[in-house]
């Protein structure tokens, strides 16, 4: 039995964290967060050079050929650093093409995605919170007409993987005719979301879409759970540091038992859930029967826990925690994204109940 990270995996997380500490410190992060696009090319370039864009893609396509656990570990580190950029959509888009694409489609896109010459994203959600493949209603094959909501960095993407009725998947390329992309002004300014409308827009079906789309969704759930864990544990760090430095009544506020216990409760909310997303990521590759439910459970649980930790973090910082200047808000909004994207906790709790045969 070995339920711990390998040295390589620990190194991978360290590397990403150090990269972010160096290349995306608070000031830089805030600049991107407050900026026009939420995207910093040099930062993304750096991630690509670390191999993060193709981590989960086969070496044959220029990827690192690693597993979901490795991708999730990176996702945790990015959540920990609240790293802005298209990692999530790009990873899921690449996975969709890998699992559902024709050889030609793979050849065309995967090397470019792995190499950072192109960026992918996924367009799943339809009005009413219809995120799940079985809920998609957008029809069409060669051309699409209709719209998708909450598409990460659509304006940036060279290729969009679009979810269609029957759980099918199709590719739409940048600048395709009849496509209209409008910002939805999302709360997480490090991961911008757009509304994408199609009007007779040419699309290319992914042959194995119907078989692959649920699995791509599950991958997304794992990555969001990991990101949420990263964000939550970072927020806890910030609160503990603050409690050790902020003084009131002549002592650091960590001396106040009520706050100390609140921090302990935050710790017990978040820390054990690390193993929950590890397990879901591990199951994704090694325990197929458990993969979908573990992913739903991890996403529902961590989406909720990280969000609560974020709320507690604002309070633990007192008035200042409520300000724009305080970094807490950046992770607070990170947690809001992780909680709601691909479906709120209640949606995945109900799915988990069904998947258990309850």
């Amino acid at each position, binding site marked *: 039995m070995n339920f711990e990270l390998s040295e390589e995996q620990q190194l991978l997380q360290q590397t990403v964290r150090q990269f972010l500490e160096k290349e995306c410190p608070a000031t830089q992060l805030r600049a991107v967060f407050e900026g026009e696009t939420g995207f910093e090319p040099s930062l993304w370039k750096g991630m690509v050079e670390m191999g993060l864009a193709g981590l989960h893609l086969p070496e044959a396509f220029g990827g690192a050929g690693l597993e979901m656990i490795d991708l999730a570990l990176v996702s945790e580190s990015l959540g920990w650093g609240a790293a802005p950029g298209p990692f999530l959509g790009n990873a899921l888009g690449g996975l969709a093409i890998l699992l559902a694409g024709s050889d030609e489609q793979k050849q065309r896109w995967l090397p470019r995605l792995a190499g950072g010459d192109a960026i992918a994203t996924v367009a799943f959600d339809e009005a009413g919170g219809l995120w799940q493949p079985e809920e998609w209603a957008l029809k069409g094959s060669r051309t699409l007409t209709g719209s998708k909501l909450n598409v990460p960095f659509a304006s940036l993407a060279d290729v969009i993987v679009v979810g269609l009725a029957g759980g099918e998947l199709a590719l739409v390329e940048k600048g395709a005719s009849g496509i209209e992309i409008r910002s939805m002004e999302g709360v997480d300014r490090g991961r911008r979301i757009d509304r994408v409308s199609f009007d007779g827009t040419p699309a290319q079906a992914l042959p194995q879409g119907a078989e692959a789309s649920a699995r791509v969704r599950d991958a997304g759930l794992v990555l969001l759970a990991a990101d949420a864990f990263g964000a939550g544990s970072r927020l806890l760090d910030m609160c503990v540091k603050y409690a050790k430095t902020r003084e009131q*009544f002549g002592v650091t506020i960590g001396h106040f038992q009520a706050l100390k216990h609140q921090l302990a409760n935050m710790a017990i909310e978040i820390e054990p859930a690390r193993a929950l997303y590890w397990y879901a990521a591990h199951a994704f590759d090694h325990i197929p029967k458990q993969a979908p439910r573990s992913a739903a459970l991890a996403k529902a649980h961590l989406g909720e826990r990280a969000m609560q930790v974020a709320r507690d973090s604002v309070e633990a910082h007192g008035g200042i925690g409520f300000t724009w200047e305080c970094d807490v808000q950046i992770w607070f909004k990170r947690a809001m994204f992780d909680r709601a994207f691909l479906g709120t906790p209640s949606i995945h709790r109900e799915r988990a109940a069904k998947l258990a045969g309850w």
Partner: protein
Amino acid sequence: MDLSYGKQYEEFRAQVQEFLGKHWPPKGADAELPKEEGRRRFRALATEQGYLSRSIPKRYGGSEQEPDEIKANIIREEFRRVHAPGDVTGIGTMMLVPTLLEKGEEWQKEKFVGPTIRGEIGWCQGYSEPGSGSDLASLKTRAELVGDEWVINGQKIWTTTALNADYMFCLCRTEPEAPKHGGISYLLIPMKQPGIEVRPLRQMTGGADFNEVFLTDAKTPKDWIVGKRGEGWLVSRATLKHERNSIGAAATSTAMLAGLVHLAKTTKRGGKPCIEDPEIRQRLVAIEGYVRSHEYSGYRQLTLNSRGESPGILQLMNKLMSTNIGSEVAKLALDVLGEDGLLDAQAGEEMVMLPAGNRSWIAQYMYSLGIAVAGGTANIQRNVIGERGLGLPRDVFADRSPAK
């Protein structure tokens, strides 16, 4: 028990309605007046009638009425119904005026009370500092007497309305040698002067309801001090007694619940309105249990206050009740919002009580934390309830404050 206001109060209500019928909206010649002038005239009339500035002595421009929370409530209700201008709101009338009336010099009352209750001058409050939150008495802003002027240096924070205020009532350390609470004085400071810079303080919602105020050799006359040197802490505590309106707090809770129910009725999940979801229903009613408890406890406080009796521990709970309810409402709202939980808060939105659109619910989701802070953090509230309400020992670190 009788939840109606009772006969003589209904008669009073009738008088108020009759008055409003005559004078609002402005009739005859008054109707021709410019808007602001019309409102001023109306307020003057309403004050003569004893409907406004009821707690203010006539000689300072008030109507000097017997305190009667129920009449006050009826007036608020009726004025609101026809959108007539009521008592000027804000920190000036709520906090400064009562303080001046209790602790101020005669000339200070004459100079400031009238214009304040007429809304001719506005105030902001200079209490909190970056380093002094729950431990307010540790404030560091210094005021030194140079000749016949106070020269003030320091920084204040969480200062609402600072941008438009004409004056600030401000706690400053004037006796550096004196013990913590004894070294503070209560000064009145003109805001429109070179020594004062106001910077809006942006919140996580993107809006800016608060400000930071930087005082750099700011000046105010020697006698613009309320109470004696070093008595500022006691003077400021005196004001707290005037903070009340329990009904107000509960009204917020009921309004939030109403908004939430509306949201759950109008938002669909899986094709059906969220309010048909059994889990949402359970959570809604669970929240309503707290909301009605707060609302009805408000009736009881109103009754007791109107008799001059103390509602005891209940009164210490209003802030924390609002905080808890606000936070439960916000969390359920976020679940109802579903995918719209990804949207940014309505930037610049004022504190929303009955959120309009989904984006203002996102703002509410954040404000529900801000509220906790505004009323002193929830932990401070718990200390108050535990210590003053249940008689438990005070915190070891919290040094006794002289006034209590």
